[in-house]
């Protein structure tokens, strides 16, 4: 089974993309939003995840946020920064608590920013390893801005630690 990084640990990837001709048994299944809307009434075993693109409107996901354990955001090219905004909106505006996983063009040099934007799962692209992804995380000991990682800006920490002036 291929491996992914979740919460800075290397774990087996249990998620499988849904396919309509597949028999519906247990296991963690990833659906496109339209697919899920079609089958959600049918009872099944296993966890549900959504597979979305970076231009996904988070408002359309709102009704499903409580029922899905994972949102996989497909990043076609790492220079497409829309997924970063989507991650932050899902966490900070919509309060989504499940896993947000980056899939697609994901490698050592891209994961640090994604993690700060609320992603906690990373599927390495072909040729990249989970161990390399771990090396790319947590590169900076501080950050100026607010983000999912640090909900307060540096200037508020400076105030409380009295390091100003």
């Amino acid at each position: 089974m291929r491996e992914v990084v979740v919460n800075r640990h290397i774990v087996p990837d249990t998620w499988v993309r849904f396919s309509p001709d597949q028999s519906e048994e247990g296991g963690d299944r990833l659906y496109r939003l339209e697919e899920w809307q079609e089958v959600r009434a049918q009872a099944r075993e296993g966890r549900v995840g959504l597979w979305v693109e970076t231009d996904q409107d988070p408002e359309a996901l709102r009704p499903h946020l409580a029922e899905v354990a994972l949102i996989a955001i497909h990043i076609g090219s790492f220079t497409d920064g829309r997924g970063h905004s989507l991650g932050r909106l899902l966490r900070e505006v919509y309060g989504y608590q499940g896993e947000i996983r980056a899939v697609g063009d994901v490698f050592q040099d891209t994961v640090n920013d994604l993690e700060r934007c609320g992603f906690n799962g990373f599927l390495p692209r072909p040729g990249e390893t989970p161990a390399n992804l771990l090396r790319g995380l947590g590169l900076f000991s501080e950050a100026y801005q607010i983000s999912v990682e640090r909900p307060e800006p540096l200037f508020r920490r400076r105030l409380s630690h009295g390091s100003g002036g």
Partner: protein
Amino acid sequence: MYQYDEIDQRLVEERVARFRDQTRRFLAGELSEDDFRPFRLQNGLYIQRHAPMLRVAIPYGVLSASQLRRLAWIARTHDRGVGHFTTRQNIQYNWVKLPEVPDILAALAEVQMHATQTSGNCVRNTTTDHFAGVAADELVDPRVTCELIRQWSTGHPEFAFLPRKFKIAVNGAREDRAATGVHDIGLQAVQDAAQGLGYRVQVGGGLGRTPMVGEIIREFLPARHLLTYLDAILRVYNRYGRRDNKYKARIKILVKAMTVERFQREVETEWQHWKEGPATLVDEEVARIEARLKKPAYRSLPAGIPAALAARLHQDTDFSTWFRQNLHPHKVPGYTNVTLSLKSPDQPPGDATADQMDVISDWSERFGFGEIRVSHEQNLILPDVALSDLPALYDALCPWGLATPNAGLLTNIIACPGGDYCALANARSLPLAKALQDRFSDAVWVRALGLLDLNISGCMNSCGHHHVGHIGILGVDKHGREYYQISIGGAQAPARLGKVIGPSLTPEEVPDALQAMLEVYLKLRLNPAEKFTDTVERVGIVPFRDAVYAPNQEVACA
């Protein structure tokens, strides 16, 4: 300049360590060219015509003496002894070697400098008035705002891969010397009697292929909301800006496509989620940054012209010409701001040698408080010079070719590096600038023309800001030959875009064309105070066009 604390210092060092690792992996073949490119760009490194070019950030154009000395050292050690100051108040080195770049960045970090986000599709170095904090017409010192934006934008995790580059300018004076109308975001500080400091927010200005003047989306944004509001604008742009065509990817295209009203609504809606949240500014942070911007200990000086200065002005015409042309009023009595022109006839516009940078650093300590400014007109400025020191400073400048009395004049040519260095350019800028310097070598005649911005860009990317030049020259390529398109009537502030006068010209024709237009101007202007661009605005481009394309036709006097 803002003095780093230990956290600022650690962050810039961690950034160097990361880039050192990325460079090592690239050189070892572990990181492909395509994957490395965006990261090297975000650390200021372009691959150019001859060698990689490194663009170092000079946040809001403010340097200390020790920083300028370090820039000189880099020019000497890692380049060919020259640096090029840009229209965005940065410095570029055209001959660096990629394996040495991490060491250059480490050397910069030692003096609290970096090359972070000077390129790439991210928030770039914020620019402002080069007389920030010292100008007599200032409402608010914009450097605090700029530093807040520098920190907010540095390593912003959400906005490292925007549809396109993003430039913010801040102005705090009555006169807009930051060209806020032609930036992705232009902030004009406003002091409101009831609400205190705030900003007028303009969005969607820019030059390049599709020049536009920005639209005001908020007349007054209270200062404490600065960062949450910027986040909201950038988020709307990041999510909805076009990514399918890089020529339509700037925020100006999005604002036009959405209409400014809808764009504004989107921003306001987005902002509601973050407004009054933790990123809302607190007075203590503003005070902390103010305290870290080293303020000079001005002496109490008499306001008038000291007797020795008056005598020199009386005796020495060259000195008095320079005095009239290259000084800018200071807010403190007895002091002035001096422009050191990097536009001598023998130097490519904006270039300074390592030796020049070193002596300028020395003068900044001897005649000022150890601070130097970079102007977007590609000159260096010594702020805080006592009027009584001007004769000594002038005598020091002359042998170094830094006393050319042309600040604001035709020969203060603003030009990008052009085809001699830049891989994007369609035509060269520097030989044309030199030809124009040679043609307009009569300083008396040039002064008679009054204030006149002449801007040259080697391609549509408009690094020479030709659209807002009173006279703008754009290099174009026609069947492998260099041609130049001329536009007139542009202005930086209030921003106005120049109009193209006709078919583009060969390099040999350009000096004649300018000469013809300038003669028309001298005939048509109402009085010497009417600038070239204002005459164009009043009478239109036709008389100028006719002078260029029908040279035998006489122009009637107005």
